[in-house]
């Protein structure tokens, strides 16, 4: 897709004015990852209450795509049912961003946020909920994202 289609007003707006930017003290989930190819960094914090995402924040450094993607993902999952969040797919993220047909190098930027989220959910499921079956499933999904 062309740059004019990628760098739409909305992507630039989320890049320059990220929503839910910051950290949560003592979060239920804290997960950090980086893209070794370009050094993009992302850390997500979540609180889960009554099986729902009670709060979510992120911090990071990186390109407009990775940072807008993270910010838009936090808005997408805020208040959502835990099950729904668990089942988020690559397509959901790209639909939400309105970015399709990104090249192989840049799709990693768009999906870093989902990768961080799924890795965080893996730790939460395996360590706190002791649900190894769901945990393993989500771990596999996270590693298949690139």
């Amino acid at each position, binding site marked *: 897709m062309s*740059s004019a289609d990628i760098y739409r007003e909305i992507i630039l707006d989320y890049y320059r004015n990220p929503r839910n930017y910051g950290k949560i003290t003592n979060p239920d989930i804290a997960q950090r990852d980086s893209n070794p190819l370009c050094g993009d960094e992302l850390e997500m914090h979540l609180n889960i209450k009554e099986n729902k995402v009670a709060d979510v924040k992120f911090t990071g450094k*990186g*390109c407009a795509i990775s940072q807008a993607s993270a910010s838009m993902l936090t808005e997408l999952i805020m208040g959502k049912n835990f099950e729904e969040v668990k089942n988020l797919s690559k397509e959901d993220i790209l639909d939400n961003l309105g970015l399709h047909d990104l090249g192989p190098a840049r799709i990693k930027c768009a999906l870093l946020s989902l990768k961080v989220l799924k890795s965080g959910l893996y730790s939460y499921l395996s360590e706190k909920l002791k649900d190894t079956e769901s945990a393993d499933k989500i771990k596999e999904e996270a590693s298949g994202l690139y």
Partner: protein
Amino acid sequence: MQTSMINIEDIRKDFPILKRKVHKDKALVYLDNAATTQKPIQVIDAISNYYLNYNSNIHRAVHELAEEATLAYENTRDKIVKFINAKSREEIIFVRGTTEAINLVAYSWGRQNVNKDDIVVTTEYEHHSNIVPWQLLTKEKDAKLEYVGVDDNGELLLDQLDKYLETGRVKLVAFSQMSNVLGTITDSEEIIRRCKKKGVRVLVDGAQSVPHLKVDLQKLDCDFFAFSAHKMLGPTGVGVLWARKELLEGMVPFNGGGDMIREVHKYETSWNDLPYKFEAGTPNIADVIGFAAAIDYLERIGMDKVREHEMELTKYAIDKMSQIKGIKLYGQMDVVKRGGVISFNLGDIHPHDLATIIDEDGVAIRSGHHCAQVLMERLDVSATSRASFYIYNTKDEIDVFIKSLYRAKELFRL
């Protein structure tokens, strides 16, 4: 448009890849030469000629093909001796690239000579390949790794070097002759002079300098020198470690195996002569042969001409880029003190976004940390964009690049 020094149109005809289009109909403007350069047809032909006509293993067999291959392979070594003004062919070790050359020194010489509380000094503008091997070595030996800092102009702070040298604990100083990010040309002779006074060994990373500057090892007077073929028109997978013969003689082999031995018995082996002692296994024969064609090509143009052309392009690019509002150029602006590598950031456009946008116009640049995260920390940025030039680049291409930067600015509403 072309510089008066060399006939660029003729040179460009030798590079088939420069004729290709990218993104359907855009002429390729290749400005990622610090990562790897394009290859002239002479290099490509030399490699395919080996595979088509005399492919065979070297050094052992007595048949005609093997003899031809051995001659061609060893011919490259002789060309390199002349190209960098080494004393003898015994000092030229073929490796996979600069990274392997530095690792060889760290593992072989380093393990024998660096001990507890000794110091290895490197600089803040090194490529990871001249940092990580020293981290591994100093951690293993409980030694220290220290850094010579970089000032805001992209120059090394040599006072810091003196401070380390005065401790009397420094065993090795390792630095690059040209920064792959800032393009700074290191005052190598001065550093080496200071190290020699204290009896300290010096390793010079020539990955960025040998392709662009005339390098004379007798004048430089370092102890180890490393560079790669692929950044100087040659193939990937070939590089050179040069080291003083007396040092190589005292060093243990890095890899054990075929070709590096004189006699092998059940429990003891004696080593082959230099340089073969350090070339275990079947080497990258085809690409070493291709490397000779690259050296021939550069010698035919003349390294002085290469340098003049790049200085002219760099000056032209810096002048044009400086006029763009919101651009930040890193490092030294005096083209006499820097090579044709320009790192920059444009407003708040992340380098990856910038590279994506200008790629659509056919312009290939690098974006990211350039394997120099220590320097990125020093510059307090997570990444930069980097344009780097070589003999086949033209001012017209720089104009395309500049125009594309303005388009990126517009897309980001800057």
